[in-house]
């Protein structure tokens, strides 16, 4: 292959290579340490099948509930493009998914638990929370808490794809609200739905801390839990590698099936988009329904967060905030967040430009779907396995002590890649469709093309993903806990240390600080990047 045939492909090749090295390399590093016997035992253990069954079942239910509820909420937000507090509400919707899971779980317990807010409100009336939190209910509740707002934010752009002409035509035809949904909105939503379903499903499939805390007992065990157990307690890296591969294969099959089964409709192309043009906006019933959807969703999402804030404020706020260690830890977490997000953004951009080049210049029309699929599937690789693999590699080249935080950042970069890829790829491809010829005429390529053409186009859609990635790696606890961070701990690790030392009141304050910083980081990235310069 000469250099010419590689033109336009190298950014993606580099990114794909990096990704392969990270994932395959770490899996191999873990797998090398395996004992063949334990591998065979894992695969033929009936308990393992029970674990798979439960993992798929809870993930399917969680996804169904989260996405089904997200559609009416997103529709309500889309139908009401202007109301006081809308921007804040939508920005804060990004919060649950970036919160450290254990912090969010305590928020949920504070609302729905036995001694929670809901019971405190119901008790005087002689009532009680009508469900048992611990068990499948708790898992579904927590997964909905994380993923309903995420799905709303990921689905919301679908409505922006509906053109003014379409709304006008529908208005002329006198379509009812129901018909509008069926004939105008559904095609637009269904273009986004498969991607959202795959992301939410994978997030629930690989869920770990939620299942272990709210699951109620060992009958609620996901594959990810089994991997943790294999790595941590059985000291059996081989078994962990097998389980990780099984999880990856299973997720690939499910993701491919989901994408094939969910037929993607192409929305009508067109330029002018104005949600105010929709004919059913002034209807009274619609207004009431939208208000109810928005208020209920906000209550559901913000009650646990409010409980965390109030628990934090009851703790020793001053002494925790004046601790210099807290700010050093926060600075390290910020460094991790910036590095992880940048690496991930670079990888996403590389993969997306190559997919574009494959589609537009080489007429490989499946390139886009394939890229998105690969990107999503990184969610199915257990961070614990990547982390352990990277650790083993660093050990071999005697770099363990100095690159700990960098390794944490790299694992996080893989974890946030799907969000970035999903937000950048479609826009880059449509930018290519519009400007490919112009760029060729002007001789714009490489760096100049990125700065002048692509960056202005992707910054808005990428803002949410970058903000999400940044905040997610800022608050990451799972990966950070794997490595030795003595002397240079991150904020989430500090939170955990306080809990391990009985300092639950200080931990509540640390959690509050962590959540506030996540929101701030999220807010700054989301706002400043999406604000158009001209």
């Amino acid at each position, binding site marked *: 292959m000469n250099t010419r045939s590689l033109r336009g492909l190298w950014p993606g090749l580099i990114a794909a290579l990096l990704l392969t090295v990270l994932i395959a390399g770490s899996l191999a590093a873990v797998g090398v340490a395996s004992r063949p016997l334990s591998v065979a035992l894992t695969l033929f253990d009936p308990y393992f099948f029970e674990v798979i069954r439960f993992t798929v079942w809870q993930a399917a239910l969680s996804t169904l509930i989260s996405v089904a509820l997200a559609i009416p909420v997103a529709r309500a937000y889309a139908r009401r493009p202007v109301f006081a507090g809308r921007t804040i509400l939508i920005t804060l919707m990004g919060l649950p998914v970036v919160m450290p899971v254990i912090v969010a779980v305590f928020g949920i317990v504070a609302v729905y638990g036995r001694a929670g807010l809901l019971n405190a409100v119901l008790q005087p009336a002689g009532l009680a929370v009508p469900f048992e939190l*611990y068990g499948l209910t708790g898992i579904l509740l927590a997964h909905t808490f994380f993923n309903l707002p995420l799905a709303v934010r990921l689905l919301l752009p679908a409505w922006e794809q509906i053109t003014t002409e379409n709304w006008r035509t529908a208005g002329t035809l006198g379509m009812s609200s129901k018909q509008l949904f069926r004939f105008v909105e559904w095609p637009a939503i269904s273009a986004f739905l498969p991607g959202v379903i795959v992301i939410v499903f994978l997030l629930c499939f690989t869920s770990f801390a939620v299942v272990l805390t709210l*699951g109620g007992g*060992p009958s609620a065990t996901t594959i990810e839990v089994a991997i943790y157990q294999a790595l941590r*307690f059985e000291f059996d890296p081989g078994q962990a590698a097998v389980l990780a591969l099984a999880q990856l294969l299973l997720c690939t099959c499910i993701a491919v099936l989901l994408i094939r089964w969910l037929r993607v409709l192409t929305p009508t192309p067109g330029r002018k988009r104005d949600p105010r043009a929709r004919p059913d906006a002034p209807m009274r019933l619609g207004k009431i329904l939208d208000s109810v959807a928005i208020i209920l969703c906000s209550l559901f999402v913000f009650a646990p967060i409010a409980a965390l804030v109030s628990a934090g404020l009851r703790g020793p706020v001053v002494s925790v905030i004046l601790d210099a260690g807290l700010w050093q830890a926060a600075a390290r977490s910020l*460094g991790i967040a*910036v590095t992880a997000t940048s690496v991930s953004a670079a990888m996403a951009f590389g993969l997306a430009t190559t997919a574009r080049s494959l589609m537009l210049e080489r007429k490989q029309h499946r390139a886009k779907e394939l890229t998105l699929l690969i990107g999503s599937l990184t969610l199915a690789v257990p961070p614990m396995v990547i982390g352990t693999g990277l650790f083993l590699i660093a*050990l071999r080249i005697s770099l363990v002590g100095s690159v700990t935080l960098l390794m944490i950042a790299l694992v996080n970069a893989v974890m946030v890649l799907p969000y970035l890829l999903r937000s950048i790829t479609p826009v880059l491809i449509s930018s290519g469709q519009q400007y490919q010829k112009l760029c060729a005429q002007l001789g714009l390529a490489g760096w100049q093309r990125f700065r002048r053409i692509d960056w202005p186009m992707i910054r808005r859609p990428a803002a949410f993903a970058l903000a999400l990635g940044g905040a997610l790696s800022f608050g990451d606890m799972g990966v950070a806990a794997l490595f*030795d961070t003595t002397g240079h701990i991150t904020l989430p690790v500090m939170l955990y240390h306080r809990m*391990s030392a009985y300092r639950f009141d200080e931990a509540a304050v640390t959690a509050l600080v962590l959540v506030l910083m996540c929101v701030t980081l999220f807010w700054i990235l989301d706002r400043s990047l999406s604000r158009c310069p001209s």
Partner: protein
Amino acid sequence: MTFSRLLAALGAGLLSIINLPVGAATPALTVYTYASFVSDWGPGPLIEPAFEARCGCDLKFVGVEDGAALLGRLKLEGSRSSADVILGLDTSLVAEAQQTGLLEPHDLDLGAVEFALSWSDPVFIPYDFGYFGFVYDSESLQNPPTSLWELVNDTQGPKIIIQDPRTSTPGLGLLLWVRKIFGDDDTKAWTSLSPRIVTVTKGWSEAYGLFLEGEAPMVLSYTTSPAYHRHVEKTDRYRVAMFEEGHYQQVEVAARLAHSAQPELAKDFLRFLLSDEVQTILPTSNWMLPAVRTGEALPKAFRDDELPRKTLGFEPAEVSAERKRWIKRWLTALVQ
């Protein structure tokens, strides 16, 4: 945000998270331990300057998640490990740690040391110990069970939160405790207890946090937990239910590594762990009982009536051999 500013942020972020090793002139001793031992609230920050002052060396603690992770780390690193001493394994892990062949006899004459527990092992030295116990909130539970038998069999008994024996040492401790009392009836015992288990958590922190939130009146923890609340929070609200059959003992131990380049320093450190200086630090920083009888009495917060009448335990070799099978029985009983 302009593009160049974005690039600058990337550079700054990358720089801030890489720490290159600094060359040291003094000999260094590396001790692997669990994270809470070296956190700001643990004994590590108190022990480090004290030992460095007497050894003229640089004591470097490396903290990993917990005792189980510690052994996992040692196994992963094998002979490449930079550890000289490993500190924080407990009795249920020592047999497996020994099987790695990475550890060496401590080689110390401990004849003069007056241990507070019975111990004779050529490799591991115990530095503190404790007992698993059920801590309860006296404001929501007036009559706690007085025996493990009562806890298991009283269908009207209190709800509890426990930890998973597959992921946590207290969880494994309870499994062994039940096994010790009920023997082959362990499955029956777990089935009987099952309806009163609110949830089974990954580790101690989650369980104890849920307990303090009021999610259950009782939680699996240590008999020394109430001492923390009395000593630091000045409250007598949280107490431990003392069981007639006795309590399962957890001994925390340290050992030195065979390939260490600093065998003498490692030995000095192990001996230092048994000194009065360290032993008096441990109760109020690690919230465990000192392994050595020191001249000083324990702080008032530690009460005599919270010491078990009988100490229970399995031989480490038996735990190592049977652990997987017993966990399987536990799983079967609770999954039904």
